[in-house]
């Protein structure tokens, strides 16, 4: 099952992994380990990093089941009521629980599927440009928004979309329409989040797509040219498929983090400016932030985080499974 992804789909199709895999299966564990000692050696620093910095602190997860008391620390704090599940019960009892979940999932699905697209299109376009100076200038400028803080990004969009002085509404009025107060309307919240994120990421994302193009075997293009393929055909049949792997993996990863609201800061700023959009803008992140503001409730936050992690992990496994069946791509 494993190993179907990479090598089998390497641009030049070589005799792929199967024999090697079967060979590996018959060997006793330690002999193989010794045989692969170079690989093990390479693995050690990274693995140590994960064990020390991720696994050792993991005892902190118990916080979710305790009534955390700063003085007594994580070990000394008493267990929470309801068999330790008190904070979970409290979370589930939030009257807008389902609305909040739906908002989070919708927002993240939207971002997961559509956010990479502008970057891909832009990278394809850049790849076709032959004026090197122009290309370089455009690419460098396109990074700019990525370095702006969320505060600045929201400020810029508020300015552009302002119903009285904004560019967009001036155009709408010029065309004979009524000015729209985009920031005030709940139905514009998700498109706005998507637009802001896409604007910020469009240039930056090209880095990865262009790097991927750079690794495509140039022989493929040459033989396609010989076969009489035009630029569009080459783009469609050679360049675009090379993007599939990372796009799908990115999708699986964001599938796994559906409940972790991406673009939290922008979300928060929009929400704070305008409580009227709460019906669509309240995500788990916002909810937690507001709970945390009133009082620092470590245990409660930890429980929401814990529940979130469980769901994410399940989603990740499902996403990975579905993806492997449908597209042949998978994380493991």
């Amino acid at each position, binding site marked *: 099952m494993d190993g179907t992804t990479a090598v089998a789909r390497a641009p030049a199709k070589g005799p792929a992994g199967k024999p090697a895999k079967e060979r590996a299966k018959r060997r006793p564990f330690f002999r193989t380990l010794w045989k692969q000692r170079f690989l093990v050696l390479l693995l050690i620093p990274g693995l140590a990093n994960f064990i020390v910095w991720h696994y050792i602190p993991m005892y902190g997860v118990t916080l979710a089941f305790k009534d955390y008391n700063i003085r007594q620390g994580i070990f000394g704090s008493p267990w929470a009521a309801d068999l330790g599940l008190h904070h979970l019960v409290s979370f589930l009892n939030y*009257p807008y629980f389902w609305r909040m979940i739906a908002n989070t999932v919708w927002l993240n699905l939207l971002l997961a599927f559509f956010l990479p697209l502008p970057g891909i299109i832009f990278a394809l376009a850049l790849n076709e440009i032959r004026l090197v100076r122009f290309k370089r200038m455009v690419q460098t400028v396109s990074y700019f928004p990525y370095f702006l803080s969320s505060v600045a990004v929201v400020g810029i969009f*508020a300015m552009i979309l302002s*119903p009285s002085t904004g560019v967009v509404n001036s155009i709408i009025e010029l065309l004979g329409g009524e000015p729209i107060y985009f920031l005030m309307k709940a139905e514009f919240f998700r498109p706005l989040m998507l637009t802001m994120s896409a604007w910020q990421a469009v240039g930056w994302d090209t880095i990865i797509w262009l790097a991927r193009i750079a690794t495509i075997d140039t022989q493929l293009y040459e033989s396609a040219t010989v076969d009489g393929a035009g630029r569009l055909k080459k783009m469609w049949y050679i360049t675009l498929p090379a993007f599939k792997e990372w796009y799908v993996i990115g999708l699986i990863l964001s599938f796994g983090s559906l409940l972790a609201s991406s673009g939290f800061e922008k979300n928060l700023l929009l929400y704070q400016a305008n409580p*009227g959009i*709460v019906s669509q803008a309240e995500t788990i992140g916002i909810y937690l932030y507001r709970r945390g503001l*009133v009082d620092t409730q470590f245990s409660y936050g930890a429980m929401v985080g814990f529940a979130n992690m469980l769901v994410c992990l399940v989603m990740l496994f499902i996403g990975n499974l579905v993806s492997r069946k449908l597209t042949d791509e998978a994380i493991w």
Partner: protein
Amino acid sequence: MRRTLRTASALAFLVLALLASACAPSATATPTPAGPTDVPLTSVEVIRSTNMSQSYSDTLFTDFVKEKFKLDLRYTYYPSSTFQEKLSLSFSTNSYGDVLELVDSAIINRYSKDGFFQPLEGIIDSKLPNYRKAYSDEDWAFLLSSMSDAEGRLYALPVRMATGSTGSNIFFYRSAQFEKAGAKVPTTVEELYDGLMAIKTKINPNVTIPNQWGLANVYSGFDCAFRTQNVVWKDPDAGGQLVYGPITDKFRDLLIYMNKLYESGLLAKEFSTMSDEQFWSEYSAGNTYFCWRYPGFHNKKLNGLLTAAKIEPDWEYDLDNLLLSAYPDKGPLQQRYGTFYTATVAITDKLEADATALVLSYFDWSCTEEGQLFHEFGVEGETYEVAGDGIPSFIGKYSDATDTNKLGSYYGNLQDFGPFGYFLVENEAHANKFYPEYKESNAALKDFEYMDLFVPIPYRFSQAEETRQAELYVVVDSVSKEYQLSFIVGTKDPGSDADWNEYIGKMEKAGIDEYMQLLRDANARTVK
């Protein structure tokens, strides 16, 4: 060739930067030279937010304290933008300091439950007589009742404010313009509306009411007129009981009025998302005709803006007409500030008895006339000089309010807490001299009823209650804000009983009654 050169220069830049930055931390880590003294220095770690005007490289202040009290104050600055996070982390990992400065009393109270702070109420008379002297007996009783916990322990010393620098905000008008439009300078909210409409039709079609800092701020001034607030407060019309403002009938009247302003185009369409630049540009364009700010603001800012824009500066205020009223029979409320700031100073349990005594002696000295002067202005001849009228003023680099070596000076407020700002007691004489307008307006307003601002409503929750009220607050607050916005922009009609009842119904479902009951009970426990 050129390419190689560019690459090489990029790499050289990186290497240089690496070298320079490797040197940077070591260069700044030089220890402060201790003066030649016989008495050993007591080192105290002070944690405070960066909202501070002392220059980071300036040791004038700490040297002075070292000399006088043998006290080595080592400041750790937590960035003010993340102060709460840093603080809670330092407590939960046992890495907190000895003294906390400029921390909101609510935060101190939260941690005091776990015994992080030393109770101070018992030693006020013996160790801090000068601090105590700054309060009248009545004020002191009020301070104890609102700042101490259920057992009567006081963990945080609030900063005593000078009455000469605080008081209710007031309305300013461009009176001449109202008169030019044939309207009178308003005294009631209806007259304000009529006046603005007259100006709109006769003088300036762009007249507008801009709003800064979001939805919560849009009611400013009008909430005083309608005798209500958009939070939980002690409503004098309900016998001083705790009331959630936004569900009262008075608040409904306020919303109807706001809706009227919005519908008529007077209230800026984007009142909840306006930026500072957008806000002030309306003032400098001369499109605003009234303003709700602190006394003296017309001279400090409003007229300056008009002058810069080459418009005749005509902002003024009238001592007989400082507030608007919506209910003429009852009159408006004025905003009352407490006799102390909720920003406080606290001593943690880490500080040993001897050191605590030393710190307290320093605190007490800071409350004397001499200590106040030192904290606000530093050392005579070095940082300030006294002019003929007796007003001290900064000299040299200290007089440059925009010196960016002081982070606080990005906002130009040289006067601040701590070094070169008031510390535990703000000097009354200085405040009176600097803000003469407060004196007049406070005198003119003295007979008006109050709404309290900046005075915390004390609560004593149990652990379970605390969690429950936090849970309820999130719902109550979001339902209320959502509806407030809809009522103002008219997607819901605040005048229609159906819409209003729908809102009240939603609030009841959100648990407003339980929420208020929790707060009232918790508040009742504090009243002794």
